[in-house]
């Protein structure tokens, strides 16, 4: 859809250099999801007080 210019690495902006690293993005996605949704959610469930059922 568009033309991507090739530039020497020294001229590539920081954001683009970060976006060019797929495994860094993979790590970012995993850490955010597992941290905020999964682990925090597990902590919420496991810390739930026992129900005082008769």
């Amino acid at each position, binding site marked *: 859809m568009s*033309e991507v210019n090739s530039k020497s690495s020294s001229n590539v902006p920081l*954001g683009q250099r970060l*976006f060019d690293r797929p495994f860094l993005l993979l790590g970012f*996605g995993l850490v955010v999801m597992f941290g905020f949704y999964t682990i925090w959610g597990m902590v919420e469930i496991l810390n739930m007080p026992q129900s005082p059922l008769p």
Partner: protein
Amino acid sequence: MNSLVNNLANRFRTCPVTGLKVDKSAENLIKVNAVVAVVCLLIGAIAAIGLVFTRWQAFHILPADWYYRFLTLHGLNMLIFFIIFFEMAVLYFASTVVLSSRQPAPKLGWLAFGLMMVGMVMVNAMVLTGKADVLFTSYVPLKADPLYYLGIILFAVGALIVVSLFFASLVVAKREKTYTGSIPLVTFGGLTAAIIAVITLLHGAAIYIPTFLWSLGLIELDPGIYRLIFWGLGHCSQQINVAAMVSIWYLLAGLTVGGVVLNEKISRAAFVLYIGFISMASAHHLLVDPEFGPGWKIWNTSYAMYLAVLASMVHGFTVPAGIEIGQRLRGHTNGLFDWLRKAPWGDPGFSGMALSIVIFGFMGGITGVTLGTEQINMIAHNTMRIPGHFHVTVVGGTALAFMAVTYYVLPLIFQKRVSFWKLAKIQPYLFGGGIATMAVGMIFQGIFGVPRRHWDITFKNAPFNVEFHPSVEIFQAVMGIGGTIAAIGALAFIAIAVASVFFGKTITADDLKNGASGLPQGVLKLPPQVYSGANVAAVHEAGAKGTMVLVFIFLAAFVLYFFVNWKILSFIWKIG
């Protein structure tokens, strides 16, 4: 050594339309995954017909057990098998064809395909034989046959292998310098889908392996923990769709009208917001669960999730604006909407993409953000508003985008002319119009409190009386008529795809030269992908004014729908 070089050289063909080098082994994997996706779509569509005519109480054709069996069959084949098989084809395409690179391990690709096939067949067999009436969610303690869970695990392992191959392809393409600079935006969208797929499949492993052991009676499983981890799979799998769908929008915008990317940084940043935050939408399913505190709920479904909504709104602007600029660069510059009037509406690749954007954005996006608001969720949870919402995101958005791109995949990858071309031209309108109508019927039923996943809302033989507002019957008819039109649209698509792949005419150079029937206009004459000339600066300077008007219409619709929902909440939940 020479034979190795020859083998590698023979693995590629050059696409006569795009000029891209296509690895034949990747091409074969794209073909088989796409074909099986269509078979799963057929299974899901047949089940859908049974469901529509059961929920529509005037017909109510299925008995209770078969209703839940069909609901399980429909959910799994549409939300998992059709979509994920197609996404595997998209990942192979985005990593090898777009980058003109080779598939690094074709045998592993076939092993993955085999695992996914075995898993899909096992799951469908268990469901159809009545050993897994547990719906798509298979909430514990509902228990299915262990082979059902094993089938899902095998399917997920196969999908994880394909995602790993996607990452391997990126590494190989970079090392072998098949591209320079950054990967193209379409591949970046594929990368986003692949990352979300890893998140999804890890959650799938984390919950389905213990559930398999639980079904064998080997361990205990907490229903609350099951729900938490399951939705890391169940909802995230639909976010893979969103990323794949948006990538297809960008791809089709370029192929059909020479759409431009307004700003690479903005579009890529929006994809990165998806990577970080879209998966947390899973928490919407747990908004009424008591185990989670408001901090967890509000952070995940509001603060974090709105970053992903922002990303969707960015794409919802940049794709149409890119189309507008592309059309203006091609000379359609009069007024605000000349670019839209002169668009190739008879090209199913274009019309399917355009309808997908409108249905996903205007209906799916607006309803989704509203339902995701914790207070409003209380009056909408587990009502028909929920399937109303996801039928305009996953079906009217994603499935329609997948259908639209198929009209380009058939000539460019299968090298076949599209069969039943006249039918193909109206198919996106049938399917998109039908789904949108059906969703409106569902949403209005939900507003009147009609529950989802319910066999009989007359509550016949129940020890209590439940009466819904009489207008519900009208909205059931709207749902039924829309669902029937959508099913006709889906079956038309399946007929077109099957006839084209197995009985279609192979494209020749003369077909391309003479403009033969069954070839979309973007294939016959690929629009410019890079523009030059005196008018380029002027068009960019003028901007995308027509899209800006559409954006404000969208905003007005959003504000109105959101406000009306708070108003409804204030009627129901009186304070003071």
